[in-house]
């Protein structure tokens, strides 16, 4: 049995690193005495795993993690108990129970959507230029080190309404594009960058990751 959580990381919590976040969630699970399984061996640790990591400073309304359970629990009770004890900015949006066997959470995430505030006057023009072209080469870290990569194909959607940016980027296990990298490459200064969805693709349509891959 595994408990799968969707949660937010907003406000003050944006300044926690991914490892800080892992620790904070593990401690919260301990405080509510959730029956989470531990690994065996020399240095036992809690069996939790995250669909994806979030960069420092980027907020999110839709992060996903799962915890392996030793015993069944009421997902709503667990959600409420956690929300009473989590630090400012982190809150559980939903909790569901899945079977243990089945793919890990990361495999359900193929895309990520974001919003941000872009106040610079040439933002719309830069976006149009990008969408019209096939290529945007940047130095991107790969397993072999820094490599010239064309990130244009990884931008699935990008639109601006006033100063509100909407963005959908590839976020698969095979390669994820971080919004900061895109903004740097385009010379855009973005504020309030917030991840709004972790998505899967089913029959060519984008759906929330949990929905798309319910075990």
């Amino acid at each position, binding site marked *: 049995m595994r408990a799968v959580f969707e949660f937010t990381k907003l*406000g003050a919590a944006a300044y926690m690193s991914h490892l*800080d976040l892992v620790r904070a969630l593990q401690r*919260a699970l301990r405080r509510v005495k959730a029956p989470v399984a531990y690994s065996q061996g020399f240095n*036992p640790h809690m069996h939790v795993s995250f669909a994806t990591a979030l960069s420092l*400073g980027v907020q999110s309304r839709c992060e996903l993690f799962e915890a392996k359970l030793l015993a069944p629990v009421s997902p709503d009770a667990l959600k409420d108990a956690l929300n009473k004890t989590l*630090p*400012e900015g982190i809150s559980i949006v939903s909790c569901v129970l899945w079977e243990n066997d089945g793919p890990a959470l990361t495999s359900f995430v193929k895309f990520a959507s974001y919003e941000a505030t872009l106040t610079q006057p040439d933002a719309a023009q830069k976006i149009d230029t990008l969408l019209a072209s096939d290529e945007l080469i940047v130095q991107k870290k790969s397993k072999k080190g820094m490599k010239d990569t064309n990130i244009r194909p990884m931008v699935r959607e990008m639109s601006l309404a006033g100063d509100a940016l909407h963005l959908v980027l590839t976020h698969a296990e095979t390669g994820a594009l971080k919004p900061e990298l895109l903004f740097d490459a385009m010379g855009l200064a973005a504020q309030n960058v917030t991840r709004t969805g972790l998505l899967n693709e089913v029959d060519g349509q984008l759906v929330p990751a949990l929905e798309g891959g319910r075990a």
Partner: protein
Amino acid sequence: MTIRQRIEPLLLKVEKPARYVGGELNQIVKKDAKLRFAFCFPDNYEVGMSHLGIKILYHAINARQDYACERVFAPWPDMADLMRENDIPLFSLETHSPVGEFDIVGFTLQYEMSYTNVLTMLSQAGIPWKWSERGEDAPLVVAGGPCTCNPEPVADFFDLFMLGDGEESIVQLMDMYKESREKGEDKKTFLRRMAKLTGYYVPMFYKASEDFGAVTPLVDDVPAVIDRAMIEDLDTAVYPDKFIVPNTEIVFDRVVLEPARGCTKGCRFCQAGYIYRPARERSVDKLLGLADSLLSSTGYEEISLSALSTGDYSCLHELTSQLVKRYQGDHVSVSLPSLRIDSVVKDALVDISRVRKSSLTFAPEAGTQRLRDVINKGVNEEDLARSVTDAFEAGYTNIKLYFMLGLPTETDEDLVGIAKLASKVRWLFYRIPFEERKGNLKLGASASTFVPKPHTAFQWVGQTPLDEVMRRQGVLRDAMKFVKGASFSWHEPYTSFLEAVFSRGDRHLGKVLARAVELGCRFDSWSEYFDYDKWMQAFSDCGIDPKTYAQREIALDAPLPWDHINYGVSKAFLRREYEKALEAATTGDCRQGCLGCGITKLLKGGCPTCAQYSSSQN
């Protein structure tokens, strides 16, 4: 815009922005408190949040409904520079309020190398450095912590020092200040009243000597000698039932229990062993209750027992076996700090090693029995052999050994002795049959530079000159090369040199400290910021030779600039201890019989350490 809003654009430009954000679980936010205390730790967030004292005092103050205590840590230079450029003052974490707007601003003085950060933080808060420059509108600026046993080098900067145990005296200070303000009194009247109470030293009513000498009252209604505050019963003393859980990694991130305070061994170099007397203990029941509430309010996976000599805590095995029994199933590990080698901890070690093993630290301090006897570190090689063997048999493979270099009467033979001890430890490990060993030995030895401290038996001794210290480090390094697989670490002695200057310093050093901060000195305990040349410039600008302080050999009957601060152990006792040191004669553990150190004069009841109260020769 609020300060919180104003720092937002800066946060992604600095290292570890979580240092400045607050919002951690178990923080206490009180917007309507009648009296507000800004607790300033003069180092960064990660260091300050790992300190036990701030947790205890934060809890003690906030337990009073109408008082608020908020935390303030030194902004790291990257943030400090941005704050200055943007006119953002030093702020507290709980409410992001300017520190200059609090009623009382208190600093904890844990080590001399934090003094420059104190002045930097006062500047950042817009508070004048000297008490003589602060008006009625400025907050009261106070200090506590172990360095207050010789507060003179910073006496120009504080309105009041709290000496000794702080849990009650900090709340009493606030009670008296609140009353004074309600009466509409000025600060000087309030401070004059505090100066008459036990545990508070108010430097404005005392004058320093022209040369290196005694500090005397300027008025006749303040005591010539100020006694420290004393909590006699640790079991009933306040202790937090919750810790703030940081949102980012800090140095020590775990539940900490304080089983005991004070020590009975009388190691002659150790200031803490003298100034935290008498040895007082908490009961196992009390500690278990605290463990329970601390674990459930934090979710931590580790409990650390913090005491000067945890191995001497009379109920150690009972405590550790109970903790392991209750929490092993929850994956909570128990760790012990540096252990005295002569304490019997084997059973405790076996218990705690069941969950998770970390490293074990032992501090033999000196390489030969002769030198260990001089410093009264009452352990011998058999004790060390037995302790490390116990540790190895309990499955520990990671051992750290702490030593000091530059001890009184030290010779090169003593240095080589350190390498021999390390070698012996290695030999003991490999003597254990292969199948019983749990991995490879990770052995580390480190040697810090001895700093003579006030209120110890070595307070009259000058520090070994720097070039000689470096020569000795070389001797030890060469000897350690022969100990296969052991790592050896040492620190360049420049910070220890400055520590020695300020530790046995007097009020004349205040201007050097101020000059050093003007020249840009800050975060001196961090090697990336410590600037020895700037410090030497500061001394030179003030016409003071630091060697006069660090290397000063003081006559045994000379008046000292810390004689007016009484931590309980008498000067006559310390003098006797020093004379015994020169003969390499040892003094026993006072648990075995009172040795007449003088602490009983500060106690209302009998000495908690000793079964019988006796008034001995002094």
